[in-house]
């Protein structure tokens, strides 16, 4: 039968072994993999300014990016590809809540300046270049709406 000290050993050994493995893999991911990706070298000051705006306004409190965030508003990883730059800039600069008349759900009317809207667009464009192991998956079907 298992004794208490064997159980303790199991706990301590497991904790140490798996912590070391995890830290090693984190190092590999960070230093050998992510830092070497071509797109990591294209993080311009505009992209960084966009990321500050993204966080400063908690956009993730409604949307997802890389599938992380809230489930109230659309996933934005490929938003430029889907909507185009002009559309995105337009809604970011809109003085009235976006979506007000179409969906019942409203986006905060940020009314960003042209410059800030451009930073966010640069951020989204950069996001769109990251290799995400196939996310978001392309839907299998293409459904038409009946009117």
């Amino acid at each position, binding site marked *: 039968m298992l*004794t*208490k000290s064997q*159980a*303790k050993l*199991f*706990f301590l050994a*497991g*904790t140490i072994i*798996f*912590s070391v*493995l995890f830290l090693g*893999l984190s190092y590999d*991911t*960070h230093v050998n*993999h*992510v830092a070497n*990706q071509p797109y*990591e070298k294209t993080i311009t000051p505009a*992209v*960084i300014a966009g*990321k500050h705006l993204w*966080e*400063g*306004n*908690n956009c*993730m*409190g*409604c949307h*997802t990016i*890389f*599938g*992380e*965030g*809230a*489930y*109230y*508003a*659309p*996933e934005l990883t490929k938003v430029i590809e889907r909507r185009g730059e002009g559309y995105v800039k337009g809604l970011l600069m809109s003085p009235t809540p976006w*979506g007000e008349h*179409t*969906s*019942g*759900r*409203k986006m*905060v009317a940020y009314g960003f300046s042209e410059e800030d809207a451009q930073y966010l667009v640069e951020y989204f464009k950069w*996001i769109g270049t*990251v*290799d*995400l*192991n*196939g*996310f*978001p*998956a392309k*839907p*299998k*079907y*293409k459904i038409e*709406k009946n009117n």
Partner: protein
Amino acid sequence: MKFKTQKIAYWFFLSALGLLALQIIYGFIMGFAHMGMDGLHDFIPFNTARAVHTNLLVFWLLLGFMGSAYYIIPEESQNELYSPKLAYIQLISFLAVGVTAIIAYHFNWWEGRKFLEIPRPLDYLVVVNVLAFLFNILMTLFKGKKQTTTALVLTMGLLFAALLYLPGMIWFDSQTLDSFYRWYVVHLWVEGVWELIMGGILAFLLIKITGVDREVIEKWLYVIVGLTFLSGILGTGHHYYYIGAPSYWLWIGGIFSALEPLAFLAMALFALNMYRKGEKKHPNKAALNWTLGAAITSFVGAGLLGAAHTLPNVNLYTHGTLVTAMHGHMAFWGAYAMIVLAIIAYAMPNLTGRKLYDNNLSRYAFWLSNVGMLGMTVAFGVAGVAQVYMERILGVDFMETQKEIEPHFLVLILCATGFTTGVTLYIINFFNHGKPTDEALVSE
């Protein structure tokens, strides 16, 4: 209770329940918004409601854990708390920081990173506060007559939780690295060190309630927390599938996170077996219900519903949908909310001397809140699965899909009403105990 300073726990429990009530109000705001009724938008937009809802959750659970430690550590180490004054200062300052953050979210002041929204300057205050808490607990432990396994596991969980908060405070220009280290906090908390806290509280409760020999209970406690780290640490990989991390995380995360339910299964079997084995049946039925309930519901909410979307080929479609919200609710509820409610239910009669062990109020509180939460989980689940099929497989636009699944949020709100009634009864029952008093001291 056995030591006067255990009374401090009461104030932590009281604050925790207050914040739980507030958390629920913001939950309703979001539930209605999902139904298309976003009337409060100008004052409390969705992102504010969400940050408040989830931060209050984490906040009241931490208060609950701290209160548990202030109750358990003196009793386990057979020693008064090192500094009651520090504990009160720590409580008040912790509340002040939390309330400031919550107010800040209403004025667009935050750091919009999911679950870690607290503005940076306040982060530092949280760190100082938690250090003060840990100092107090560690001093009590080391000055005490005994250092039991239960006390050590609980303290280790709290200590590691504090350490793991730090990687979440680093700025990265790259969204991938930002997210990578954010999970050091979020995942390694709930699927790692918080399970130590839960295990410690659970072991304490089982020792008290079932009367099974401490050595037996603590042996299994080691096995459980061993399983937690064996699976949960590399299991972090289930958040690294689709954020720009290398593809080896697909199989590492897949395999190890699929093992994570084992720790929760072990916890459920452990609690049930100890209950069956126990000779002494403690009259506090309410505490027994919540204790066994936590062990079982955490297995369902965290273990089974987590495993349901943890494999990479499933997660590719469910990642970031309402399926995640389904799991998030029952997991947090079953594992952490219920264990805090269990220790409160156990501690209150001991702190106040009023033995409300087995009344109708506490029975209705237990069943209504749990059945309500089960219903909410089903509502989120149905909405989530429908969302996955429509949006991710059939290619229907996001907003069009959301329009179609609105009715499920009516069901959510109805079940949430039942849930809220249960929680309200729990809080009424809490107040019915009155205040803690030295007259409730017993020597055993």
